[in-house]
């Protein structure tokens, strides 16, 4: 399985049990496992939610919504059953953290989801793991079975009178299902077509019942917050951005890997010190700081704090924690092309701006990179992306548009260098035939 890395600057909270055999329940219990859920049962729903609010934990899936607030939106009384759904459909290119959590600490996800259920008054938890992660799903299945065998799940957990069932669920390959409403559709056995909101899942979710949906890393953080206290967790990060985050370093760095660092950590330091800098004596060209869907930062913009608010101020997003580093030998047009190919493949076709936009961007970038570009294409790409943004049911359309907007805006000169039939300056020769021009 994947190799673990470490660095002295790391603050190990979510990763504190990595490499210690905690997938086994007895080992997990030795390492303070299932203490938090017992404490949560004593605290009661309101106190748990207050603790979560104090912790300033914000959703680790990408949107960064405050977790405590999300839980507080669930109505206390509901005619239909309430649910907690763990989003383990990790599919954002650049992101590989939930995989490590499921491998090394699956019980933390289960325990976190149980605490979420107690907080909102739900009696059923589903842990959704993407289809490609079959080996991880098997670890989760085993962990759930162990928890039942110990009597931690099921009827009357820990003698509290509270019934709580935990189930696993697997996907079958679909990026879009990582979006919360599509995730629920998939769990209901359907195509992962997103739902229109409102109503939000906290009111009308799975099978019509109020549903809390949290990312696996978010839930794995919860038991630690309950044990250490919300304030102590919040103090690890920066204001309004509590705790740590698993940053997945990939691309052109000497020491790629998943590092757990406090929110607000400096991106430049992350690239040059933690991840060992750019190899082969090359220089930094750009960083995609939060998974493939966020606008890139140029080499001049990397002296920035990695928290939700600072990143947004810089015109990008902290996103999913996938930090993709590009050196100066990378063709941005090629990179943009591969990015949009992905979104075109994953677009479900439900919303026309996304379906057509991703397809035309793919066609244009393919032709453009192949030497068949015309000057008008550059503005056309911007125009296409601008018109996708905010005009789709789910954020997949935004996710496809934002990186393209960023590349065109920040690397326009590189697009221009591909014009007039000139070969790619980086000697990339895609074997794809020329496609028609959108409009002259």
């Amino acid at each position: 399985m994947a190799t673990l890395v470490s660095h002295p600057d790391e603050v190990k909270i979510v990763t504190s049990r990595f490499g210690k055999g905690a997938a086994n329940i007895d080992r997990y219990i030795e390492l303070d496992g299932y203490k938090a859920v017992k404490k949560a049962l004593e605290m009661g729903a309101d106190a748990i939610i207050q603790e979560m609010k104090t912790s300033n934990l914000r959703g680790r899936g990408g949107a960064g919504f405050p977790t405590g607030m999300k839980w507080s939106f669930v109505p206390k009384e509901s005619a239909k059953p309430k649910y907690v759904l763990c989003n383990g459909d990790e599919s954002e290119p650049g992101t590989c953290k939930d995989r490590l959590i499921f491998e090394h600490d699956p019980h933390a996800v289960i325990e976190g989801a149980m605490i979420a259920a107690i907080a909102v008054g739900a009696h059923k938890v589903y842990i959704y793991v993407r289809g490609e992660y079959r080996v991880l799903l098997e670890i989760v299945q085993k962990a759930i079975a162990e928890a039942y065998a110990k009597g931690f799940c099921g009827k009357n957990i820990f003698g509290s009178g509270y019934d709580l069932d935990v189930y696993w669920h697997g996907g079958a390959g679909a990026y879009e299902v990582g979006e919360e409403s599509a995730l629920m559709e998939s769990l209901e056995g359907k195509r992962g077509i997103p739902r229109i909101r409102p109503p939000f899942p906290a009111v009308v979710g799975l099978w019509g019942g109020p549903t809390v949906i949290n990312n696996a890393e978010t839930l794995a953080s919860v038991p630690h917050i309950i044990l250490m206290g919300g304030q102590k967790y919040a103090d690890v990060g920066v204001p309004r951005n509590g705790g740590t985050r698993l940053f997945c370093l990939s691309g052109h760095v000497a020491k790629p890997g998943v590092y757990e660092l406090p929110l607000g950590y400096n991106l430049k330091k992350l690239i040059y010190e933690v991840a060992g800098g750019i190899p082969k004596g090359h220089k930094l060209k750009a960083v995609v700081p939060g998974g493939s869907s966020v606008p890139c930062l140029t080499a001049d913009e990397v002296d920035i704090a990695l928290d939700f608010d600072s990143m947004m101020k810089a015109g990008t997003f902290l996103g999913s924690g996938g930090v993709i580093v590009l050196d100066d030998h990378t063709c941005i047009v090629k990179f943009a092309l591969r990015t949009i190919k992905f979104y075109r493949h994953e677009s479900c076709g439900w919303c026309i701006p996304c379906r057509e936009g991703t397809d035309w961007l793919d066609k244009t970038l393919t032709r453009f990179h192949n030497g068949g570009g015309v000057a008008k294409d550059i503005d056309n790409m911007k125009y296409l992306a601008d018109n996708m943004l905010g005009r789709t049911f789910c954020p997949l359309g935004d996710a496809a548009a934002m990186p393209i907007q960023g590349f065109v805006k920040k690397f326009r000169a590189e697009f221009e260098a591909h014009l007039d039939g000139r070969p790619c300056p980086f000697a990339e020769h895609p074997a794809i035939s020329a496609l028609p021009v959108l409009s002259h």
Partner: protein
Amino acid sequence: MKFSDQLEARFAEMISHYPTKRSLLVPFLLYIQDELGYLTQEAIDEMGVRCEITSLEVKNVISYYSMLRTKPAGKYNVQVCTNICCLLRGGEEMLEHVKNRLGVTVNKGISQDGVFSVEEVECIGACSWAPAMQVNYDFHENLDENKIDQILADYRAKV
């Protein structure tokens, strides 16, 4: 069609997890595919009956999910990622190498002996260990040409 004992046991377990019958569809179709190699018309019809939906609706679900297929693949399906993080570290070259080694020219093509199929896939969640591929469900990471040759030889020896 008749399911194997293993699939029947899985079905009985899973159906009890959900308030509606069709909820198990996505993961269960993948379990069927693991056994049969692909989703046959008989399997689709059977799932339609069991979930109380039409076969067409089952197919409608299948066509949405990238991993579900209605045509055979090789015994070992080699899925090479060429998405951005793998691209930066040679993912496309790795895909070419796998195709050349196995004599497969088209995406999702099957090698002549039927042992391998090769598929270009989107991000498999191995970004920090790129370039990477999956053979069926097993991850193989930090790839280079020599490593790929060894991996393929190991699978071939298992046949």
